[in-house]
């Protein structure tokens, strides 16, 4: 299940969506919004996406993970719009027969999502300023490996 939503993420539902009789475990990554960015206090965030491409890229990352690791089911849910500090912005759940595969695939999915999926975060600071998240330096030299 791949989803982009303006509603609060239903973490239990995302986890339940990867349940499988053959699963020996489910690995879950929950990304939450931090109250500090570059040493400044953050009030809330807003996410925007190039929605059709973001969905396609997330589907493709899930496919790549399926090809690389023996995992059973993968779900990725990303929130859009305003997200308050402490709320979940992304939930990734991976089920597999054995835990190593689920851990590896989940790690791959969040790492790649942050590099290639066209979603942007805007930070609303306590001092009244608003900025698009700057991750330019981290982005340099990255490849769209596997997608």
């Amino acid at each position, binding site marked *: 299940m791949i989803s982009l939503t303006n509603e609060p993420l239903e973490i239990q539902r995302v986890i339940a969506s990867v349940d499988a009789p053959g699963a020996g475990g489910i690995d879950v990554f929950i990304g939450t919004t931090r109250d500090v960015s570059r040493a400044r206090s953050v009030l809330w965030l807003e996410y925007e996406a*190039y929605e059709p491409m973001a969905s396609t890229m997330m589907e493709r990352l899930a496919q790549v993970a399926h090809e690389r690791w023996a995992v059973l089911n993968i779900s990725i849910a990303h929130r859009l719009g305003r997200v308050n500090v402490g709320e979940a912005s992304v939930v990734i759940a991976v089920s597999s027969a054995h835990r190593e595969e689920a851990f590896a695939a989940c790690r791959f999915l969040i790492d790649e999502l942050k590099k290639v999926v066209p979603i942007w975060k805007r930070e609303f600071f306590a001092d009244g300023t608003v900025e698009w998240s700057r991750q330019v330096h981290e982005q340099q030299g990255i490849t769209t490996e596997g997608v």
Partner: protein
Amino acid sequence: MKVTLRLFSIAKEMAGFEEREVEVASGAQAGAVLDILTGLNPRFTDWRGSLRLAVNQEYVPEGHLLRPGDEVAIIPPVSGG
């Protein structure tokens, strides 16, 4: 020929619009839209090395050949997750 330009995040802010049909030369490369944007706002020059391009929702290099009706998106550094 006409292509549809789509802008997001900081690129949208710098250009002052989100979506627009633009005219490019027949046989133009995807990078041509960056020249158009730089003409609108010189700040695009500073960003040129950080902006990626997507044509019809697929990442492409600047040299990718455009076709009439293509949707060309400017993808600033992503920050999801």
